[in-house]
């Protein structure tokens, strides 16, 4: 927003610049630091004697002969079986995104074109469902899933994540479909299309921007989830985030911190790249429900 009449004093400008730089440092430095540290050995990144070792790479030089090492990565991906976790994450993410978009577009389209009272109540119920802490839902799942013997496998987790994701997807796509003019599909109905045909041939071609935003959010939910995947999957099927937690170790067995560091970097990098690419969609999605009030 450019104020035509607004002139800023230099002092204000300097203050503003300093503030933004400080904030960006706070926001980004931890990631940069972790990325840097993932190429060091444990004795450097978690140094007991001197934190400067993380920069001068004192122990890394002694242990590996170079200033940087990719040992943590190779070990975590092979020995730590991080490849398996990322394979599981890819499976879960792909299925969750496609299924929840399929269900979500149909449902949200119906909601946006319905003039009945129940559409409002369904949206309210979805809002309440959105507020449920995931862990309370998981505590409801565990017992029935044990009894039905469907605990620990990927399909169960996929279905659960799709369901948990539906309220948000419905709200997002609902507000998006509201902006698509009604006349568009109404004229198709007059020409003799069924509702499904109108949806298939008239709405689908114009709905991509909204679908991409909703898809990104489903992806981030499935990719980032810890609560559901940690408790509903067995060791063998763990996705990346619970895997990272298992590297941390517990009181009983010691973990391997450097594996966790490199795994964090490996898991975060694709996400950052994706968001960099789709930044506009992420921001429009976050504000979709909000700006209209």
């Amino acid at each position, binding site marked *: 927003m450019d104020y035509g009449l607004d002139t800023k004093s230099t002092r204000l400008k300097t203050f503003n610049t300093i503030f933004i730089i400080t904030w960006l440092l706070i926001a980004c430095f*931890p*990631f940069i630091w972790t990325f840097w540290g993932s190429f060091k050995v444990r004795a450097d990144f978690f140094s007991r004697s001197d934190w400067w070792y993380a920069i001068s790479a004192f122990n890394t030089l002694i242990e590996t002969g170079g200033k940087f090492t990719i040992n943590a990565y190779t070990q975590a991906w092979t020995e730590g079986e991080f490849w398996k976790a990322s394979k599981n994450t890819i499976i879960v993410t792909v299925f969750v995104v496609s299924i929840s978009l399929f269900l979500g577009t149909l449902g949200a389209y119906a909601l946006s074109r319905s*003039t009945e009272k129940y559409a409002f109540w369904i949206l309210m119920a979805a809002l309440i469902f959105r507020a449920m802490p995931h862990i309370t839902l998981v*505590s409801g799942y565990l017992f029935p899933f044990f009894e039905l013997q469907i605990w620990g496998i990927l399909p169960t987790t996929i*279905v659960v994540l799709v369901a948990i994701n539906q309220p948000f997807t419905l709200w997002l796509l609902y507000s998006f479909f509201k902006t698509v003019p009604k006349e568009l599909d109404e004229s198709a109905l007059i020409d003799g299309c069924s509702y499904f045909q109108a949806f298939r041939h008239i709405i689908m071609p114009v709905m991509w921007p909204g679908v991409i935003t909703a898809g990104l959010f489903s992806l981030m939910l499935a990719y980032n989830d*810890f609560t559901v995947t940690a408790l509903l999957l067995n060791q063998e099927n763990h996705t990346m985030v619970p895997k990272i937690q298992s590297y941390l170790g517990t009181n009983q067995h010691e973990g391997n911190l450097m594996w966790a560091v490199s795994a964090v970097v490996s898991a975060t990098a694709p996400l950052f790249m994706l*968001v960099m690419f789709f930044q506009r969609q992420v921001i429009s999605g976050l504000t979709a429900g909000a*700006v209209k009030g």
Partner: protein
Amino acid sequence: MPNKTFFWFFLPTGLAMILFIGLPIISTGIQSFYAQHDQVVKEVKKCDPFGCTVSIVVDNETTSKIREAKPLGKFNGFGTYTDRNHLAVEEIKKFWNETESFGAFVDQVNNLPFYKALIFTLTYCLFVTPNVLLLGFIIALSLNAVARKIRGPLIFGTILPMIVTPLVGSLVLFWMIDSQGIIGANIQNLMNDPYLSLKSSKTLTWITIIIYGIWHHSPFAFVVFYAALQTVPQEPIEAAIIDGASRFQRIKHIVLPHIYPVVTFVALISLMDNFRVFEPIIGFSAEGSAQSLSWLIYDNLVNEEVILFGSAAATSMMTIIGIAILLAPVLIRTWKEFKTAR
């Protein structure tokens, strides 16, 4: 849209939500009235040349038989809700009668697991939510004033803390703040106290988790406020400038009233998210000094000997009630608006 068409369009997503969100809540409700079976014990008489001794051992066979017959556990009514690990009705009564001052009473109550978790969860919400709103708004104002060309990368940098999962976000911070990390070690040097560390102090742990919460949630508030700022009309602002309003006055009297609905939206969403705080406790390995309601449920569910379904379910139900209380004002307001709109 005719009801029948609506039904078929909505069926898949409705079914998914009923089966995996509606039913689990009911299932949690039922489970909360049951408790796991006690272990059956039997007396075993052992005789040897020096005489007979009677010892009590666990009868594994009978125990597992009972567990198989009634996997849900034994009916416990509201027993789980009132026991020491939850509402602790008897303990509270006892403390109330025994302690002399109110402060001592609060101290005692603070040692009960459920109240301890509740207090942490509420403190976290209370400190994080307003700060998130404030910081998010300041960043939005500040970024709104820089040249349009460089805003893209600045926005990307700003939203990074939000897009990583809370576990990863808290780990990344923890590795720096820990006594062996870059910030922790420097603070030790600065304070000249080699034993200063996150784990040693409860207050420090709470402050760290709250700071983490602000760091993680502010970008969300920023994004929404930033988008809302783009819709503020220019004419009133220009008029105010001509009338000699200061920058602060312009924000207070023009910008804030305009984006007010958005502020309530952000406050609501961030309150809901803060109430379920859980992953940072694991990321900071702060279980010792900070426990939240969600963490209590998680702890019951990963219990090593036997999963405490009943206990977890009772905490879950109380968390849901808490959420309902938080949401109630919004729901009532929406309902009133809906009624007047009709």
